[in-house]
């Protein structure tokens, strides 16, 4: 089955080129499948062999026997995907993905061992992108890399990036014969989603958006011409981004901005895109206030926020989390963003947020969470231990002090030391005064009633 499929894909009239190693094809013929696989792994490890495989998988048509050996493995990994996606676009995508995968596999081997304390082993690690199963669209492959290296962070940014990538996929997708789009597209999307999740655990926002997309796909009319159906889906994605994120943010900006009075001192933690917009908007509408940005290692995301706010002309103070106690008594309102918000009103946000909220409660300072309704999760979470992620390892984001070589600062490879950097924590609902959403300001204990009131899926 596998050789037949590959013969369809590659032009049979391709001239046989020079072999990478002379003895290989003869021996491969006699080998068992397992042996061939083993050989292939070895090939990957060796740099020369890797490029050879790469070349075969990519553009240059190799010798048919060699092809059978090398693509046989790939065909086995995705047994049903290969023969079905005979359409040119999908094959091109598959080949590109394989090329990408071949180049990344070797350098991931070394770092891939699980680190961290044993009890935290269930935390999602920022994993390097590894061998993809099935054919992965290049847009998704790129996105997965950006996620795993924290090039794209933040619940909103990740959700928008994912949906935009899905739009590309849907446009490139061709329904195979004897299938309907509404039934088949999801089976095509699932491996793409799995690939993204393998790179970094899926955010609640992405989960909600994908659920909506699935609903839209399954609701697609059977009789619609394929291009129209794809356009309609893309339009629905656009609407989702527009209504649930962009317009929602604008409403939140206005509502939360009204809570800022002249002379207020606003405290925020790390960097939330929504809070940033709220502060900028309030400043633009002429409110006189100053901002305190509290930050903490290892991400130090607040630096960026301080830069943006002070650029806009807002009086800013920047401090790290340990200094929080000394400024809290001067603060009028605390604004924080959220990764997601759970049914019990608990706010899942950047690690350190809970500390800020609890400190604010202690000082009777109102804590306002800015959060779009699409960040609502119907689950209940009681602590930040059951579900969390680990921040990227190493001192990737730190540059202090500058006068020492970076190696002397990293603690990474010490035998008796494990570094634990949880990415998120959970703020209990009792520490939150109000949640500003696009449907209004609501107390955290009424979060669960919102989806019911809106009468729709999250």
């Amino acid at each position: 089955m596998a050789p037949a499929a590959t013969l369809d894909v590659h032009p049979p009239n391709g001239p046989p080129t020079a072999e990478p190693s002379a003895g290989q094809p003869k021996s491969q013929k006699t080998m068992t499948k397992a042996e061939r696989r083993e050989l292939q792994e070895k090939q990957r490890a060796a740099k020369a062999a890797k490029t050879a495989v790469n070349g075969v998988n990519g553009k240059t048509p190799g010798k048919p026997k060699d092809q059978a050996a090398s693509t046989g493995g790939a065909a086995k990994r995705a047994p049903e995907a290969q023969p079905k996606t005979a359409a040119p676009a999908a094959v091109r995508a598959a080949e590109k993905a394989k090329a990408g995968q071949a180049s990344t596999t070797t350098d991931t081997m070394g770092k891939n061992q699980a680190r961290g304390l044993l009890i935290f082993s269930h935390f999602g690690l920022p994993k390097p992108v590894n061998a993809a199963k099935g054919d992965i669209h290049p847009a998704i492959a790129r996105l997965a890399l950006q996620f795993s290296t924290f090039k794209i962070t933040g619940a909103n940014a990740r959700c928008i990036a994912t949906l935009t990538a899905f739009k590309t996929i849907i446009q490139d997708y061709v329904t195979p014969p004897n299938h309907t789009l509404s039934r088949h597209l999801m089976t095509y999307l699932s491996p793409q989603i799995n690939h993204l999740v393998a790179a970094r655990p899926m955010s609640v926002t992405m989960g909600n958006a994908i659920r909506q997309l699935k609903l839209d796909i399954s609701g697609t009319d059977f009789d619609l011409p394929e291009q129209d159906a794809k356009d309609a889906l893309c339009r629905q994605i656009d609407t989702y981004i527009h209504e649930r994120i962009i317009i929602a943010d604008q409403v939140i900006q206005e509502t939360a901005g009204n809570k800022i009075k002249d002379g207020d001192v606003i405290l925020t933690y790390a960097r939330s895109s929504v809070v940033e917009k709220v502060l900028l908007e309030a400043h633009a509408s002429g409110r006189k206030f100053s901002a305190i940005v509290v930050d903490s290692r290892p991400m130090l995301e607040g630096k960026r926020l301080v830069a943006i706010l002070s650029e806009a002309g807002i009086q800013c103070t920047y401090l790290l989390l340990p200094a929080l106690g000394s400024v809290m008594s001067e603060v009028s309102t605390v604004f924080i963003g959220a990764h997601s918000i759970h049914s019990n009103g608990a706010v899942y946000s950047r690690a350190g947020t809970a500390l800020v909220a609890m400190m604010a409660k202690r000082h009777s300072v109102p804590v306002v969470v800015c959060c779009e309704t699409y960040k609502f999760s119907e689950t209940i979470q009681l602590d930040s231990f059951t579900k969390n992620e680990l921040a990227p390892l190493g001192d990737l984001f730190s540059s202090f002090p500058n006068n020492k070589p970076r190696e002397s600062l990293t603690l990474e490879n010490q035998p008796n030391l494990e570094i634990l950097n949880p990415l998120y924590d959970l703020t209990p609902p009792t520490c939150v005064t109000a949640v500003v959403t696009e449907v209004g300001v609501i107390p955290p204990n009424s979060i669960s009633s919102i989806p019911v009131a809106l009468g729709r899926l999250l």
Partner: protein
Amino acid sequence: MFELVQALNDGAEELKRRSPNPISLNAGCELFIAFVTLFPHESDNFAELKKELEQQGRKYAAEALAFRDKIAELALGFIKDDSVILTHSHSRVVLRALLHAHKTKRISVYVTESRPRGLGLRTYEALTAAGIPCTVVLDSAVAYVMDQVDFVLVGSEAVVESGGLVNYVGSNQMAIIAKAANKPFYALAESFKFHRLFPLSQYDLPTHNPNILSFATPPSAEQGSASASAAPAASTKDSGNLGRSSPPAERAMTQEQIARNPGVDYTRWVQRCAQEAHVGILTPEGVSQYLVGMFAG
């Protein structure tokens, strides 16, 4: 249709400007405007729609008056025979509930004087006229009397989205004391007082203005404001303590000083037990859920 809503908004704005305490007014206006925008109008011409809206509005206004009776009936379940009730200031809905309870149960009532307007005296008159044993207590004596009472029953200016309560000033301290003494604290409110507002603090209320709680310039500059302190607690104590050293006249706050005091305060939901509206008896959390449902739906 859009113009109508615009006109209604303008009208509401004008009313708000004229009224010294716009919160409850606001709630009513907002409810009506929400009703107009969400009203399913199948009638094709505007005149018919207008008639329909007007009719519905009048019907609601008529019903609203009956809400108090309904609340009085609901509140009856909370009032046991021989209970001692503490209430604050003057509220028509509380009065109605107490009078209704008096028909079937023996109750006695403490009512606060509620300075500076002294509306508690009005409640006192109404209750004694009906034959209910009633005593007026000082606002500053709430903590003293709290252990004697079975529960606290207050009216409300507005019920806000947090499940909190906006009411005549003094309600908040009453609620805090009730909480400390583990006494139930009930608020009665018609559902048209439910307000889409989320105050983060006392100073986040629409009634707050910079003049409230401002410090007066020293007496040398001003013509005669006696004391620079403007906090209500300080001022009332003032009259008690200094009364002995300067025997002649009882000290009273000047109009100017009174003006620096807030008219209403905001009671956070944590201090409260239950909320009764004509829709039923709600917990503070229930209020916010009801409100979200009412306006978002």
